[in-house]
């Protein structure tokens, strides 16, 4: 099952010197990238390295730390069955460039991230809430959102 491509880390680091940091992970190559370099790295991965599929876009809320959120992208290369994970840190007032123009499949995952965490994806064609009602207040998966529901009685 483990058919990943560990050399992708060196190829990426020679292509983008000083832009990427390798992160220890047990399952697949994982790289941390700064927000300004995100789209360049993603375009390179899709066009030059054949990562043709965006599996998911995830968000982690590290509440007390300063760049509060971490956006995680999982990409897939269908010929070698290789996967890669790209992470980037986002502060609460920052927006992330959308990868939907690169992978149309990132449309709904980005809407989900916007719905539940309030991350704004710049350049997304249709950034609306996807799960919650349109008039919902707040973003429920943030760490500072109340844990329990409102008992009406």
């Amino acid at each position, binding site marked *: 099952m483990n058919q990943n491509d560990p050399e992708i880390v060196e190829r990426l680091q020679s292509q983008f010197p000083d832009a990427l940091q390798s992160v220890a992970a047990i399952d697949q190559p994982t790289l941390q990238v700064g927000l300004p370099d995100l789209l360049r790295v993603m375009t390179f991965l899709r066009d030059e390295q054949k990562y043709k599929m965006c599996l998911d876009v995830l968000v982690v809320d590290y509440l007390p730390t300063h760049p509060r959120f971490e956006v995680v992208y999982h990409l897939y290369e269908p010929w070698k069955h290789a996967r890669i994970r790209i992470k980037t840190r986002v502060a609460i007032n920052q927006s992330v460039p959308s990868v939907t123009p690169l992978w149309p499949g990132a449309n709904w995952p980005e809407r989900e991230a916007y719905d539940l965490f309030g991350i704004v994806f710049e350049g997304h064609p249709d950034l609306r809430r996807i799960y919650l009602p349109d008039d919902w207040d707040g973003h429920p998966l943030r760490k500072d959102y*109340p844990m329990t*529901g409102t008992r009406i009685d």
Partner: protein
Amino acid sequence: MGLNPAQKEAEKSLLLTTVEKMGRWAQKSSVWPATFGLACCAIEMMSVTNSRYDLARFGAEVFRASPRQADLMIVAGRVSQKMAPVLRTIWEQMPEPKWVISMGACASSGGVFDNYAIIQGVDHVVPVDIYVPGCPPNPEALMFGILKLQEQIMKGIPPKYQRLAMEAQTP
């Protein structure tokens, strides 16, 4: 004094009752539920109609996909905040008189899902006649709830929403 043959025949083949009682009997013997399965309780609700439990014995097996043909709404499962307006609309589309069974812990009180997404009891949205406890209630429990509802109908107790309206009118 002896009865003539026509009177004897009538004694054997006629039962006397009131029209109201007869109407209630017809009503309780054909409580048609609307399908409103929302979670795992719906699986138990489905199995109540199969041959092992056979809800058809009590005339309530015809699950209707259209609320306009249903008398009873079995809310089976957790109701999310997003589903609540849909549930209310479907309840309002049902012809009167209509009843609601809240099936299981989640529909009755929110259950373990004490979070932002789940309504803490469907009685905040629609008036509930019968609460069936359990997580999920087994088919016998749901059948018991339906039988209790039939008892209420037979006794002439009006549906909960009518009782609430009457309470609101009395000063």
